[in-house]
């Protein structure tokens, strides 16, 4: 598998709301559903274990109320988990002292919020410079950095605007700029685009991918929109009632859903957007080949090229190292397209 180091990990993390919840974990055990039901408890996160690798986009998905926000706040310790461990660069975040935590947040973490959470009394420049101000940077230094970040998200020229004068999309750009200005290692985004119109959302997703192509951050991204997830994700974790049901690439989730719940999520999604050339490739023959396609290319991007070739032309599928992993033909692509058409 992937040999990148683990940046952030959860080990059996629980968050149970309600007085005396800590008592449920006395003696090191874990509560069962009966114990949780007995008191006035709300178990928002249940026994979650996961690993986020350096430089990947890790998406947490689930319906409203499934505990996504609570989980990501446990990872940043905005909410104190009831039990479990959160390892940041291998050391337990939950054991960090208040000042260590503040330092981590100042230098290693950035977060973007669903409703932007901008400070209304500060200009764009003031908002973006805020995290640096809190660290005690001098005014010229922080304004220089803030201007860079504003430039990066395409808001140059609006430095003097106040949040109330910006559109939703622009406000979230400010949210993104200020979370990036400290050059964090891990970037948390809690439904950053959910409050935006579909068109703007699309634009912001592209923007996000563009940024990530430059920055290579480790990203924990929350969404309840599966289409957004497959557009952006390296890996996706699906949550239901506080538990993680399945973790995998979008392809994994579509091809091998762990439960009907996961299947339900992936149902409306066009297969051509999820499956890669490698996934439908057959063992390579000896050719001749009409062309080469990259293994990680999504089918949807290949349709026009392959179908416009000769009727039974065969294409070679090669991975990024140039090794051949198989071949595919127009027929294979038509097969995927036709299962799609049959799906309800």
């Amino acid at each position, binding site marked *: 598998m992937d040999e990148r180091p683990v940046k952030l990990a959860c080990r059996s993390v629980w968050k149970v709301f309600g007085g005396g919840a800590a008592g449920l974990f006395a003696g090191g055990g874990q509560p069962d559903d009966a114990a949780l039901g007995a008191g006035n408890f709300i178990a928002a996160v249940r026994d979650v274990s996961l690993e986020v690798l350096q430089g990947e986009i890790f998406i947490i998905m689930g319906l409203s109320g499934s505990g996504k926000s609570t989980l990501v*706040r446990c990872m*940043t310790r*905005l909410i104190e988990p009831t039990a479990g461990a959160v390892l940041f660069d291998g050391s337990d975040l939950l054991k960090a002292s208040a000042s260590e935590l*503040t*330092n981590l*947040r*100042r*230098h290693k*973490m*950035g*977060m973007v*919020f*669903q*409703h*932007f*959470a901008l*400070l*209304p*009394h*500060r*200009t764009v420049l003031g908002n973006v410079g*805020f*995290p640096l*101000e*809190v*660290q005690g940077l001098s005014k010229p230094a922080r304004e220089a950095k803030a201007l860079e970040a504003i430039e990066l998200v395409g808001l140059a020229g*609006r430095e*003097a*605007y*106040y949040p*109330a*004068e910006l559109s939703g999309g622009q406000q979230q750009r400010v949210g993104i700029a*200020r*979370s990036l200005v400290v050059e964090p290692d891990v970037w*948390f985004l809690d439904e950053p685009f959910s409050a935006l119109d579909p068109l703007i959302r699309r634009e912001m997703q592209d923007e996000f991918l563009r940024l990530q192509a430059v920055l290579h951050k480790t990203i924990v991204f929350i969404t309840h929109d599966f289409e957004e997830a497959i557009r952006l994700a390296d890996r996706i974790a699906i949550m239901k009632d506080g538990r993680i049901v399945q973790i995998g690439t979008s392809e994994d989730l579509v091809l091998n859903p762990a439960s009907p719940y996961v299947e339900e999520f992936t149902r409306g999604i066009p297969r051509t957007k999820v499956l890669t050339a490698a996934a439908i490739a057959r063992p390579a023959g000896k050719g001749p080949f009409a062309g080469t396609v990259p293994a990680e290319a999504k089918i949807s991007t290949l349709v026009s090229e392959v179908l416009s070739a000769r009727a039974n032309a065969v294409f070679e599928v090669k991975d990024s190292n140039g090794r051949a992993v198989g071949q595919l033909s127009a027929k294979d692509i038509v097969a995927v397209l036709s299962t799609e058409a049959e799906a309800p």
Partner: protein
Amino acid sequence: MSAAYSMTTQWPAGLSRWALIWGGLALVTVGLFLLKDDVGWAFKYPRALIWPLKFWISDFMKWLINDLNFILFTFKDFTRAVSWVIEQPYWLARNLLATGFVQGFGLEAETVWPRLSWVGLTGLAVLMGVYAQGWRLGLLAGACFTYLAVFGQWDSAMVTLSSIVIAVPFGVAGGLALGVAGYRSRRVKKVLSPVLDLMQTVPVFAYLVPVLLLFGFGPVSAMIATIIYAMPPMVRITMLALSKVPAEVMEYGAMAGCTRRQLLWKVQLPSAMSSLMVGVNQVVMLSLNMVIIASMIGAGGLGFDVLTALKRLKIGEGVEAGLAITLLAIALDRLSQAYARRPPPAHGARAEGFFRRYPYLTAGFGIIAGTWVLGYGFEAIAIYPKDWQVTTGLFWDNIVRWININYFDQLDGFKNALLLNVMIPFKRFLLSLPWVAVVGMAALAGLRLGGWRLGLLTGAMALFPALVGLWPKAMVTVYLMGLSVVIACLIGIPIGIAAARNERLHRIVQVCIDTLQTLPSFVYLMPVVMLFRVGDFAAMVAVVAYSVVPAIRYTDYGIRNVPAHVIEAATQSGCTRRQILWKVQMPLALPEIMLGINQTIMMALSMLVITALVGTRELGQEVYIALTKADTGQGIVAGISVAFIAIIADRLIGAWANKRKKQLGLA
């Protein structure tokens, strides 16, 4: 929706049981009357059983002042230190605004630095109005200040203003600090809540007594009383405003790596700023109200002028000073409200250089400095010349004389009719009730509306005046308050209904009640004394005038806030306008109206206490006497009794309105 409404038409199942209990209480009361000779204790609280609380309090006070010693310093040193801290800025402000900086005493006194010129201050008021809102407000503020100069009220008004300029920052800072503490710690909040309740319901005079004892007669005492009096709403608003900052914004602050202090100062307080400004407005207005009242303990200023005029029955002078208070109040209120409502900032090219970046600040300094310099050359700019002053005193005197000559019979007849037929009989009735039954009634009402805890609370609070031997005075308080509230409602609710149904009337009424509400309670005494002299009737008129505002406001608001779809549905089913009013709007607005009545009661009580100045014999008089005798125990015990009456009314009505709102699905 319809399910919610139909439910309300069913009688609650428990009615019969409650009817039985209430009937039982009535029977017991009648029984007590029949056995009056045997159970005299139920009518007149036995003297021997009176709880000597007031002596304990007085003794405690004496101990504080004379004996308490914190080893390094005594309590007296402490109060002196507090006085000193408040006194310095106070004298600075007073010198600057009212007296000028003077060296030497008596005849040798020599003005080193004159006070700020009246032209300059008026100009500053205009500038502040323009800055906060626009030219109209600027002109209004300027006109108010000009009145003060032209009508010879400037000196007193500046004394009053210097108290306010100093009391407000202290009140705001103290309120913020307590509010932040209450927001941060649940335990602090738990302690603060009842204290704030009590502080907001204890009559103002009651504050004065202990403050007077601790800090002596003079402006500092008045300032301290003012600060304490004006602080509670700021504390409450701070707690509320802080808790209303969106959770995400707070989380962002934490993620940006704020320390606790940075989070408070850089994120939370600025985000809550506009709500906090509402609190500042409240502090300003309450300070003004209290500064006027506190003239009695040596603050001087406009309140003092009104008070002396009242005492000497110099109506004309009193009215002029009263008008000055009114205009000062309007100017301060509009200005501070405009600051609270200033639109959010907008971007704009930032001008280079300090002066261009802060044009208003620069202009303000310019005006003050310029007029000050000019004042040396032209006396009239520094101090408004006496010859130019106008007085309307005679005019008012004549009006009052004219009314008294021409309408004396009508006014007197009306007054006597009401006194003989309504007021005195009601007073006798209340005084004749056995205290046992009244306490029982209060407890039962609490039990019925809010469960046993509320019942216990209301019962205990009703018992308190009896325990401390103030029962008859408490009953007189209830009588005057009760009648005033009924009359205020009879006047206010119809006006509110009419305003709710007519847009133009609504706007006119709004302006009137906004203005009425800004007036310090003291001002209301003026016209009343002019027309009715002293006594229960005069007091009642003043109380009604002061407390009618919330009855109007809440009725109007409640009716307007009935959901539009409900009205549409009623119209659709063929209701006439009148039917809609009585069958739909009024029932739905009732909880809101009840809250208005609740406010009316609170305001009536606070005014009632002040009417002790026109000779009523209720708890307020008790406090007033205590004030003149500097008897802390007596003042506090009577003050608490008033507060308890207010709290009983507040809790009962609040519980009822909540219950009702829930039933109607409006909560």
